[in-house]
């Protein structure tokens, strides 16, 4: 909302009693929330960033030393004159997980947008039983991620999984596929589950955008004799664009930090290891707490940069056109 607010409001210098009272009340009202947020988000984040500049280890947190940017990048020059680089910025595994995350984000968000658009268009139409459909698509969204990951793990199981059974019966595959194990399909499996789970959310956001388009524009198009496909491309799409952009950025941020689904579904598969999984692995599983903190910090940084870029490039208006 206020993101787009440009004109600075005048200071309350010569403010009346009323204004002063309101501004004072506003800060009192805000204080508890701000304190809680600072404690629960601000402080821990600062700690993480701080740790990323130390050599802290989980087994001995107290004995940490400030080492500057070494976790990110360090180098030593060998006697032979060759320089060897080390650190997160040259860690192929990190870049692999960055790439995995980006790939996952692009594909999932794209498909969720397309499917979400389809579902939203269906829900925007007037038909009998619309309520049921709307309720039905909320179900995947409401199911806890843990539970849906387990459910799908079960369904994607290569031997007892119903997905293979269906595909075999339909003759689409000739042999049972190990969805979550095979490096070629692991990402696909994660994508399937993620798309199943979050398309409803996308659809609802898009639906809201669709419903803000005045109906008489469609009627004007009808009278102009524009066929429905053209109407979609030339009228609907440009008009939901603002809502769509906001929906996409939220989904993108969510996808970029994906953790629990992958953690449960394809825990250790190198093909699906994302930035969050990488960070957690280093933080807790490996003895590289500081290194993991550096990864968390980078993740945070990447999210911030992408958001800002997106807002600037996409001219996203968080006020929804208000």
């Amino acid at each position, binding site marked *: 909302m206020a993101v787009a607010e440009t004109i600075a409001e005048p200071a309350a210098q010569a403010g009346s009693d009323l204004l002063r009272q309101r501004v004072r009340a506003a800060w009192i009202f805000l204080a508890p929330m701000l304190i809680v947020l600072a404690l629960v988000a601000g402080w821990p984040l600062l700690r993480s960033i701080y740790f990323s500049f130390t050599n802290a280890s989980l087994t001995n947190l107290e004995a940490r030393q400030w080492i500057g940017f070494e976790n990110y990048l360090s180098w030593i020059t060998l006697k032979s004159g060759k320089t060897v680089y080390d650190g997160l910025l040259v860690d192929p595994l990190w870049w692999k997980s960055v790439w995995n995350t980006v790939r996952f984000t692009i594909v999932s968000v794209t498909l969720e947008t397309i499917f979400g658009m389809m579902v939203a268009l269906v829900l925007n139409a007037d038909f009998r039983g619309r309520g049921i459909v709307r309720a039905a698509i909320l179900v995947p969204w409401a199911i806890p991620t843990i539970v849906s990951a387990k459910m799908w793990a079960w369904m994607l199981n290569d031997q007892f999984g119903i997905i293979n059974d269906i595909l075999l019966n339909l003759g689409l595959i000739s042999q049972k596929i190990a969805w979550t194990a095979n490096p070629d399909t692991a990402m696909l499996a994660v994508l399937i589950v993620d798309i199943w789970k979050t398309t409803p959310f996308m659809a609802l956001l898009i639906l809201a955008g669709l419903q803000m388009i*005045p109906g*008489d*524009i469609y*009627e*004007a*198009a*009808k*009278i*102009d*004799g*524009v*066929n429905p496909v*053209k109407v979609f491309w*030339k*009228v609907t799409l*440009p*008009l939901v664009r603002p809502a769509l952009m906001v929906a996409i950025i939220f989904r993108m941020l969510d996808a970029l930090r994906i953790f629990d689904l992958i953690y449960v579904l394809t825990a250790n598969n190198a093909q699906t290891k994302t930035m969050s999984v990488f960070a957690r692995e280093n933080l807790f599983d490996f003895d590289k707490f500081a290194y993991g903190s550096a990864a968390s910090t980078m993740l945070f940084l990447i999210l911030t940069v992408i958001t800002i870029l997106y807002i600037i490039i996409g001219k996203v208006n968080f006020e929804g056109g208000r």
Partner: protein
Amino acid sequence: MAGLLLRGIKKTYGTVKVLHGIDLDIKSGEFIVFVGPSGCGKSTLLRLIAGLEDITAGTLQIDGEVVNQLAPSKRGIAMVFQSYALYPHMTVYDNMAFGMKLAKGHSQDEIDKRVRQAADVLQITPYLDRLPKQLSGGQRQRVAIGRAIVRDPKVFLFDEPLSNLDAALRVQTRIEINKLHESMPGVTMIYVTHDQVEAMTLADRIVVLNAGRVEQVGAPMELYHNPDNLFVARFLGSPSMNTIPCVIESGGSDPRVKPDGCASIPVKATIPASAAGTKGTFGVRPEDLEITTGDFSIFRGTVDIVEQLGEVTLIYVDVGTTEPVVAKIANDIPVAKGDKVALTTELRHLHVFDEKGIAYPRT
């Protein structure tokens, strides 16, 4: 060159009956205005004609052809919406050209020519490259009309096109629509409004709708002077006609009525002798009343409120009925609150309605 024929048009939404059988003959080139209170079905009827809604029963002919099943774009109509319904992301030019571009079979030149011509007529040529949001309300409305003109329709449909404009702009655009109609003599126009001034000034014929039925169809002055019934009488005119319950004293050759609280009055209306003794309603328009000091008067009472409107003055006179009688008088006549006045009128201005509200024809 398009006449419209509506026969027994009905419309039902689920279980809600909105239109109860509308019959109308609209001649080619006529300017027809639908008026009526909110929710009476004006927009619905217009949308049925446009093809935006399905007709539940009855037939609709345009130019002699039954079009019940025809898609809106094939009916040779164009529609101007209350909220303009411009495509917000397209320039004025594109808004106007959109329909033609997609219709195929029109060359780029032809489209361009038609758009520029329409823009010229409406004086919006300077804005062709702007987006709708960069235009004022009046300009937007003109673009909407321009878009309709480009379609070169046989029938122009307007749904309260002026109601989003401010008073001054409304007058101006109203005049423009009037001119537009004159410049396109063969094009039939159907116009929905709830503003009487628009209806009176634009229409060749007005269709008064009430609760899904046609109350009266006729030329504006016809409706104003000879309303068929109480509804039409009260609906047109501002302030409304004073209507007072009365008893029909006698009919036949010497028709007289006795409004509640007043003396008996002779009227100029064809009232059957048999109606004597029945109840009815007696009506007279505020602008037809004048203050008299003479013997003959229709109402006598105390002035309750005086409202000076500048050019005229309204006085509300308490004559003993529940509602005061309103009279519109010249503002140089000195009246003050509390004054006792007598009001009179020429007898030919009196209206009498029977028990069901149907007017006795005036003589």
